[in-house]
């Protein structure tokens, strides 16, 4: 974590140095996170709470599985005809008075937003929590252009003021506990606006109150807001933002200009489709029957809210995902984060280990597709899972995450096989030889029997050097018995059969 350097004269708190894509591979990041007992305790508590809420409120819906199937089908329909629906969306938006922009990549999207803010003569924007703007690193692009971007979601505020990175899609500060939040607010708020009150305690209600006071002046004076969208309705041009705190409503309502940065896969065909997604999303994400606030707006409404409305439709790798029919289901994601909350790996290591704005199981299938598998971190993400399958069970749009992880592992393995000689492909080739024919396997079993004989009465092996060390550092390894089942069967049963 870096500390703000006054000489740099930044407008907003500096994020940590380094890039996500430059992070080491997942196992190394995970090891570092596992060493942080505070983090593990925060995560265990938080994911446990939200899992229990989700389970209770999903159980209330008799037709939950039918809803999941409907959502899967609606998203598949949209993705398989995305060009048609995007053109319809564009036309609907324009008819409703919005200006539509298209961006091939992050750089182009950022350039469009910076241009729009400058055209308004504004030097700051208020932001609704948005994964798309995190993905394109809009805040830093605005900062470089001399425009301050203020995050207004409480958790995003904690992350921004904490010079930190989000570690969860829904609750970006899930890795922080109340006393850490209090310390961040006391240390940072006064540098960027209304200070935290002297009487601040670490009660969540008190901390939320401090955020309300800190942000209110920003909401009231902001001329430009930047949002994402949970859904964009092709039929009507309606955009939807699902939120809890009302910071979204503030940003979508009070400023004169509203710029929404929307991934092209957020499109839904019809307004009626919302009945499916508005039932699935809140229960899957916060574990509530309904989130406190959902805002829907259709272009410009005279006399109500922003009169200058822009929508930036962003590709940034999504068409690459779309091009692989087996990777395509990742674009169904509605960013609920149920897969993070249920994932036993995420629960142990948190979001930072994934080196991506999309952590957890969905990040492990989406990020290597969006960014490619060139970097160490992206090559390791498909392996950051035990394939336990819990993520698929809770996914409201039925993304087959375990199967997709295996599919991506195949891509990584292919790349490894074609690259310089490595241990893993050699081991796999040897194993393949052993298991392709039982006579080969019997030869290998003979070796195991010799080892067992040599070891005599030893039943378990303790700590061993490499290559057994990764297993035996913490786990004993049972010795193979002297007689395999195959040998026993031959000796005792084969004659009977004949």
């Amino acid at each position, binding site marked *: 974590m870096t500390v703000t350097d006054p000489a740099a004269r930044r407008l907003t708190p500096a994020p940590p140095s380094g890039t996500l894509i430059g992070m080491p591979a997942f196992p190394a990041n995970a090891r570092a996170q596992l060493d942080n007992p505070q983090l593990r305790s925060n995560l265990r508590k*938080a994911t446990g*709470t939200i899992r229990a809420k989700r389970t209770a409120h999903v159980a209330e819906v008799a037709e939950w599985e039918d809803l999941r*199937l*409907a959502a899967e*089908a*609606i998203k598949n*329909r949209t993705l*398989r*005809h*995305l*060009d048609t629906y995007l053109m319809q969306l*564009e036309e609907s938006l324009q008819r409703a008075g919005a200006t539509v922009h*298209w*961006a*091939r990549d992050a750089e*182009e999207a950022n350039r469009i937003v910076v241009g729009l803010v400058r055209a308004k003569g504004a030097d700051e924007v208020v932001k609704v929590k948005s994964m798309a703007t995190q993905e394109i690193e809009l805040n830093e692009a605005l900062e470089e252009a001399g425009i301050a971007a203020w995050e207004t979601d*409480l958790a995003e505020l904690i992350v921004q003021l904490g010079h930190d990175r989000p570690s969860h899609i829904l609750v970006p500060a899930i890795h922080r*506990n*109340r006393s850490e*939040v209090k310390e961040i607010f006391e240390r940072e708020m006064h540098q960027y606006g209304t200070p935290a009150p002297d009487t601040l305690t670490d009660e*969540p209600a008190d901390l*939320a109150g401090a*955020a*309300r006071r800190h942000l*209110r002046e920003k909401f*009231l004076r902001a001329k430009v807001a930047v949002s994402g969208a949970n859904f964009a309705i092709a039929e009507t041009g309606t955009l939807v933002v699902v939120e*809890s*705190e*009302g*910071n979204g*409503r*503030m940003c979508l*309502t*009070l400023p004169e200009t509203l710029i929404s940065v929307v991934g092209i896969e957020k499109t839904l*065909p019809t*307004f*009626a489709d*919302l*009945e499916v997604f*508005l*039932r699935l999303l*809140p229960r899957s994400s*916060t574990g509530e*029957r*309904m989130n*406190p*606030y*959902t*805002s*829907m*707006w*259709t272009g410009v409404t005279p*006399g*109500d*809210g922003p009169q200058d409305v822009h929508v930036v439709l962003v590709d940034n790798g999504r*068409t*690459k995902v*779309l*091009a692989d*029919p087996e990777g395509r289901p990742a674009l169904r994601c509605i960013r609920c984060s149920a897969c993070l909350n249920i994932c036993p790996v995420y629960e142990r290591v948190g979001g930072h280990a994934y080196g991506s704005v999309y952590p957890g199981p969905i990040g492990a299938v989406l990020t290597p597709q969006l960014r490619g598998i060139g970097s160490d971190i992206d090559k390791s993400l498909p392996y950051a899972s035990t394939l336990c399958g819990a993520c698929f069970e809770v996914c409201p749009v039925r993304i087959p995450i375990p199967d997709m992880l295996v599919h991506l592992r195949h891509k990584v393995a292919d790349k490894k096989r074609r690259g310089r000689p490595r241990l893993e492909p050699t081991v796999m080739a040897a194993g393949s030889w052993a298991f392709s024919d039982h006579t080969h396997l019997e030869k290998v079993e003979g070796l195991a029997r010799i080892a067992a004989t040599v070891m005599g009465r030893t039943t378990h092996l303790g700590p061993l050097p490499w290559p057994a060390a990764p297993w035996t550092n913490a786990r004993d390894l049972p010795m193979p018995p002297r007689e395999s089942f195959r040998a026993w069967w031959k000796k005792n049963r084969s004659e009977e059969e004949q």
Partner: protein
Amino acid sequence: MSARAEVLGRIGRALADVTTVDPVADVPVGWQYGRPTPMPDVLTQFAERTADYKATVRRVPAADVPATIAELLTGAGVSSVVVPSGLEAAWRAAVEGAGVVVHGDEPPLSHEELNRIDGVVTAAAVGVAETGTIVLDHGPDQGRRALTLVPDTHLVVVTASQVVSDVPEAVVRLGVAGGSNPLTWISGPSATSDIELSRVEGVHGPRTLLVVLAE
């Protein structure tokens, strides 16, 4: 080449495997839209679920609405409210009768003026029983969105005929009403669970939500 043409071109190439032109024929959606969710009593469910979110809920006969409004506002310690232009005259009169200062929104109040007003009184468009949700379509009896956002107390009157069982029926009603009005779905007061997943009522939106269900 424009970004639009390029992105659409990429999509076309990515979907080379899709040969059926009609999206509906290509991917059937086996879902029946707009069905009600069965429940014993829609109004009771609405009242209970709305109260679940720490909203204050009163069920009263339509004739008692003005008196209930006055009582709730006084009880909440509200000394000034803004009312939308189309609010029922009897409700507005009741607020004035309770000694609460009433502001109209014509010409529109500035953000700062709104920020100095304690509360807002509005009607609603739809109530959703299963989720305890109130939907505003920001018609004349509800006003523009800022009115129900900036003041800290929102008193909303929902009439029995507006309450439906669940989200599908609500989407149908709002879709039929159609048009391009903004919609705000409200389920309880503003809340956050961002700190240790512990729910706190009251962040940026109105921290007090008072609901009158008129039967």
